[in-house]
């Protein structure tokens, strides 16, 4: 029993204040998330200064809740982990400084975690990772294909050249006058419509695993604009369905090709947009044909949380990759640094 390693993890990179206690990198003892979405809704997006203010307000109570719910004390812990970056710098700073204070107060090792490593390791809370693996990371800030040949080793084989996929969803949603955050609304509308409108797919160079969504976003805006000028009605449902189909087709095709070329044992989907029903269905259907194990975390592990940070931190704990009290929030942190 004493061999169990517990990590208290903290995540404040965007608009959720989160803390979790994770056992041995794969078991959730507690996972507390305070979302600020209601507060940012009126601004139509996350306002960094407001996010930072909410984090300061919430941070200690969330940490205390995580510890209480896990029913552990600080002397039971092996380390304190925190999201170091990327993210909003002012928001990151709250988690980082709280984590440093905890590590100092209880003389515990401190671990700085990359937010995307966290999203990928959310899958470790579902099942054991098998290498080599490929992950499609899709969120409001990221669209990446990440290859891992072993624990803690990340190679970005493709990424977006302009908008992240979640960003494209939010912008299109705004054009359709849908409330923030728009992703889930488009996903819902898409199920009610038919993909009848011809929208572009950005495949880029033939062998590229990169993505581009700004052209698609502009095409949606142009389609609406042109229809309006001609006095034609376009159904929001059909437009949402067409947009979603275009996005998903590119994501799924590139994912399949990468999975085959890199001969992976597992394919993971991670990040907030992994909550998208259309994407989940299409990935499941297509990967069933490939005979490659596909893992998509449940919704509460797709969106930002601290459990995933604790799962990723466990690998660093095993390798004794600790950081000193000079740890800082790093909005441009590189995933491949190790």
């Amino acid at each position, binding site marked *: 029993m004493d061999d169990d390693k517990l990590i208290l993890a903290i995540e404040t990179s965007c608009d959720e204040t989160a803390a979790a206690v994770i056992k041995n990198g794969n078991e959730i003892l507690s996972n507390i998330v305070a979302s600020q979405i209601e507060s940012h809704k009126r601004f139509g997006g996350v306002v960094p200064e407001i996010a930072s203010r909410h984090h300061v307000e919430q941070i200690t109570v969330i*940490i205390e809740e995580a510890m209480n719910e896990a029913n552990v004390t600080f002397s039971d812990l092996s380390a304190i982990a925190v999201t170091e970056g990327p993210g909003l710098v002012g928001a990151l700073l709250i988690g980082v400084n709280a984590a*440093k204070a905890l590590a100092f*107060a209880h003389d515990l090792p401190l671990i700085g975690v990359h937010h995307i490593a966290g999203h990928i390791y959310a899958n470790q809370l579902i099942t054991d990772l098998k290498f080599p693996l490929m992950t499609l990371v899709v969120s409001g800030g990221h669209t990446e294909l990440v290859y891992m040949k072993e624990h803690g080793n990340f190679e970005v084989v493709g990424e977006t050249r302009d908008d992240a996929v979640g960003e494209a969803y939010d912008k299109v949603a705004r054009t359709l006058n849908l409330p923030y955050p728009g992703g889930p609304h488009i996903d819902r509308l898409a199920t009610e419509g038919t993909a009848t409108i011809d929208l572009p797919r950005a495949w880029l160079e033939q062998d590229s695993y990169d993505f581009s969504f700004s052209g698609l976003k502009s095409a949606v805006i142009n389609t609406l604009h042109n229809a309006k000028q001609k006095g034609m009605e376009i159904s929001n449902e059909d437009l949402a369905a067409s947009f979603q189909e275009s996005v998903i087709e590119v994501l799924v095709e590139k994912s399949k090709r990468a999975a085959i070329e890199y001969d992976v044992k597992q394919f993971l989907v991670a990040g907030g947009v992994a909550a998208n029903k259309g994407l989940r269905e299409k990935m499941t259907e297509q990967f069933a044909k490939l005979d490659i194990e596909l893992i998509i975390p449940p919704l509460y592990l797709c969106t930002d949380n601290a459990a995933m940070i604790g799962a990723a931190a466990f690998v660093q704990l095993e390798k004794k990759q600790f950081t000193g009290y000079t740890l800082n929030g790093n909005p441009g942190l590189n995933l491949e640094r190790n």
Partner: protein
Amino acid sequence: MKALAIDTSSFVMGVSLVDGDQVLGEVITNLKKNHSIRLMPAIDELMKDAGVRPQQLERIIVAHGPGSYTGVRIGVTTAKTLASTLGIPLVGVSSIEVLAQNGRYFNGVVSPIFDARRGQVYTGLYREVNGELTNIARDQICLLEDWSTHLKSQYENVLFLGNDIAIHKEVIIEKLGDRVKFGQMSDHNPRPSELARLGISMEPAKDIHSFIPNYIRLAEAEANWLANQKK
């Protein structure tokens, strides 16, 4: 009582450790460097030098603003997390009041300032009564020009303190003429041992979890949103 005091509300970073009526040590830097990187190492080193372990602390004191939003948040987050996890009281003190202490024996009123851009400053007004400063105008943000005009109409002797005086000196002299004095070089850094001294005799925060900085101002987006609601 062993207390740790933290001030990161301006470019001046200050940490002090006191025990009863003794200052065990203090760290002050006035550098445009990142407080987030340097604060915890400074606390760690000071505590180690003094041979005080975190569990021996009996109170955390923090300068809760006004000042740089990000700066204040770094200090407040560190302070409230320490107090909460160590189970000890937390006291918030005005950053302006801390700086004012450097003019404690001035015969007149003391106006500490932090630049708040666009001709504005964070300030407040303090006067000595029986060797202690009392607050006579609450901490606020205002146009320095208006503030100087107001001071001239009310007071004979005004002392300005703060490293940002250089930005506003001309306006101050123009408005206040020979009624104004400026602190010396060594008077402009708020001293964390003064922060500790003030915080030791103050009532701790009732609830550490809900303790927040005193920003004075709403976030810009919030202010704009409220203004739009009224239209």
